[in-house]
């Protein structure tokens, strides 16, 4: 598969997952802000800006943090490249460029939703965002269902799966960090109704409340929430589950060169830590926030390695001595290029 196309499919999976997650996070906060009257001193909107890395830009543009402006920034802002609207536009553009590789059903699904959204936007009907975020959930989940049911399990599907699952791991990590940023008014509030309410909302945002109750009954204990969201191998939004999906996708794609092999090893090591007891003891040793920062770094490293192993492995430069000849630099891929064995690497 063309490297550019592979990257587009990876981005497609990533963007739809991200879109849905922004809608999820907003949903949780809306639930929290319903009780805003009762807990008036609680600032539920700042943490969102923290985890979506929007705080600085936000303050520059809107000043005071309030629900309406946060929602605008994250849902329909045209200047914010990570707003739901911007993500959907990009999604559609990418889908258009890889149309021949995704199923007809997926293309129609994306294209229809895009046109519907653009129409409502020009008509000024997108203000009722509760309904909008509900539709985003439907859109994203229908996308996943369609790709599960209509795509051949070839490279195209694996790259989409890679993008989806790695982004899911990163979002679950970010959602868990909300709790860290959401400081309780006083230390006495630990275990209070407010505290429990927050844990519940957090679980709901990853569709995990029911799963939690089934596993541990109604009593919410923080370490069990971590355990579910981080380490549970069967919970489809846990980091463990997501990273296992990443590993499976990579195995299916195969390892054709050294950088692809190192990438796979890196993912396997991460998975080993999540699978065994290493992660639990690390959480205790480092504290949750530090541990989550580590997870974030590992995911970022995997993302970088995927880019190098599959998308950016070849660079072309003009040589100096003969201005009409080119040099190709292909790290770790020479063994596959019998026909270009005479490639000169003058720039090294």
């Amino acid at each position, binding site marked *: 598969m063309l490297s550019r196309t*592979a990257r587009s499919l990876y981005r497609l999976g990533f963007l739809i997952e991200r879109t849905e997650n922004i809608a999820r996070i907003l949903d949780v906060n809306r639930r929290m802000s319903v009780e805003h009257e009762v807990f008036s001193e609680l600032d539920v909107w700042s943490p969102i800006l923290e985890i979506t890395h929007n705080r600085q830009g936000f303050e520059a543009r809107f000043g005071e943090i309030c629900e309406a402006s946060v929602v605008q920034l994250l849902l329909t802002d045209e200047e914010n490249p990570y707003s739901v609207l911007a993500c959907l536009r990009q999604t559609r553009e990418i889908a258009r*460029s890889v149309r*021949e590789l995704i199923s007809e059903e997926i*293309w*129609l699904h994306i294209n229809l939703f895009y046109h519907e959204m653009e129409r409502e936007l020009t008509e000024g009907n997108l203000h009722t965002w509760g309904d909008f975020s509900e539709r985003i959930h439907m859109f994203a989940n229908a996308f996943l269902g369609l790709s599960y049911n209509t795509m051949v399990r070839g490279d195209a599907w694996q790259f989409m799966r890679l993008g989806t699952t790695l982004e899911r791991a990163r979002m679950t990590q970010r959602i868990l960090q909300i709790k860290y940023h959401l400081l309780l008014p006083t230390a006495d509030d630990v275990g209070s109704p407010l505290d429990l309410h927050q844990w519940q909302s957090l679980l709901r945002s990853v569709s995990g409340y029911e799963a939690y109750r089934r596993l541990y009954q109604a009593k919410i204990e923080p370490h069990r929430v971590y355990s579910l969201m981080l380490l549970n191998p069967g919970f489809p939004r846990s980091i463990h589950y997501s990273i296992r999906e990443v590993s499976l996708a990579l195995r299916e794609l195969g390892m*054709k060169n050294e950088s692809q092999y190192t990438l796979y090893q890196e993912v396997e090591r991460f998975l080993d830590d999540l699978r065994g007891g290493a992660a639990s003891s690390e959480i205790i040793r480092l504290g949750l926030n530090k541990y989550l920062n580590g997870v974030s770094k590992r995911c970022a490293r995997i993302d970088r390695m995927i880019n190098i192993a599959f998308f950016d492995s070849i660079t072309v430069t003009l040589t100096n001595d003969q201005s009409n*000849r080119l040099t190709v630099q*292909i790290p770790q891929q020479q063994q*596959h290029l019998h026909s270009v064995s*005479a490639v000169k690497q003058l720039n090294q």
Partner: protein
Amino acid sequence: MFDTTDAAPFDESFDQSGKVRNAYAAAIAYFKRQGVDGVERMQQSADLSLLNQGVTFTVYSDARGTEKIFPFDLMPRMIAASEWSHIEAGIVQRVTAMNLFLEDIYHEQKILRNRIIPTSQILGSSLYCREMSGLTPVGGVHAHISGIDLIRNQSGEFMVLEDNLRCPSGVSYVVENRMVCSRVMPELLSSYRVRPVSQYPQMLYEALASFSASASPMVAVLTPGIYNSAYFEHAFLASQMGAELVEGQDLLVSDDVLYMKTTHGLKRVDVLYLRLDTDFIDPLVFRPDSMLGVPGLMHAYRSGNVVLANAPGNGVADDKALYAYSPEIIRYYLNEEPILPIVPTYLGSRPKDLKYMLDHLAELVVKPTDASGGYGIIVGSHASKAELAEFKLKLIAEPAHYIAQPIQQLSTHPSFLDQDGDKQFYSRHIDLRPFAVCSADGSVKVLSGGLTRVALKRGSLVVNSSQGGGSKDTWVLYPENSDLITGGNHA
């Protein structure tokens, strides 16, 4: 339901006495049965299906890159078998001659030595591509894919209006329009015996593959990217042919071999179907600021390691000034009379013609020699006095830059439209672009169908999509069908 006030002297569906022509009898009866409401519903369903399928083009003047569907006009255009065999033979002849011409002017230039065409016309043209001289493409074929624009004049005779030998577009609409017709008017389609068009991608693939020595060549389509107005077509053709759709950034040349970058390393490309102007394909040879091409591509081409379709440098042959010489070209290389005539053409570069142009501007269509898409055209009868005066100055300043033709009364065809709030079928001007592909053995195949473009604006003669044109499905009928109809008429 059929308003023929704007009908040209030759209308496709109605003869001069207003009687329905044979081939159209069933279609017109069908639409009358549907009624205006029925036809409107069909139109909406056709438009929606095109939008949802993403059969759209990008409007350049719109900063947000708005996409529009190429307006689709419901009523199909019929071409009887006898008319078609004439068109087909004419196009095969023309494309064959043009390929011989291109091969000649990039090698021995016999046609110039024999003074059939003035040397300055070719060698002085900005479209003459010096990089191609002495280069022999496989089979001597330069125009692998061509689209020849035809019009029908006052007397119903088909004439060539323009050749497109660089990257003619529109063939995807031919295939898509048929799909839409089969969805919204299946009964009508099956009541006619219409030749299929869906085999075009196979036709194209087989022709392209014939130029490669490899048994299963890697064919790729080079697109400028999703912002190009014809992107839909590029993606459509690539996917239908099972070829890779590539952008310049996906390709690289190493040791004069063309490769594409894949997740598993480099893969060799044998045939590259260029949907990019020659100017942009290789920054080392042509425009150095092009980000769309592949550095080193021309070297790989010269070394014979990759087939480029169409060959670079074809622009010199579909230049509007050269068009005037095309009957001579056919006679010179094939020793045959042209089957399809051309429209009389005055060249600004000839002093006598220029004088005629300046004196008769109001009766002429004047076109710049090097532009396409209907840009820069002035239709004398539609221009104001001030516009004509202004244009005269331009013409005097750069006479060789323009050609002129008598205004042709393009034939008309009923089109379903909203005119002043009243919806029904109105007469609108149309043309026809059939597509031909040429194989390595020099044989030319014409797709039995073509893009019928409609000037949707009342009275307009400009059919280009960028100037408010739309398209129709074109039904080329099998012989039995029209024979039957004629037979029925006699009885």
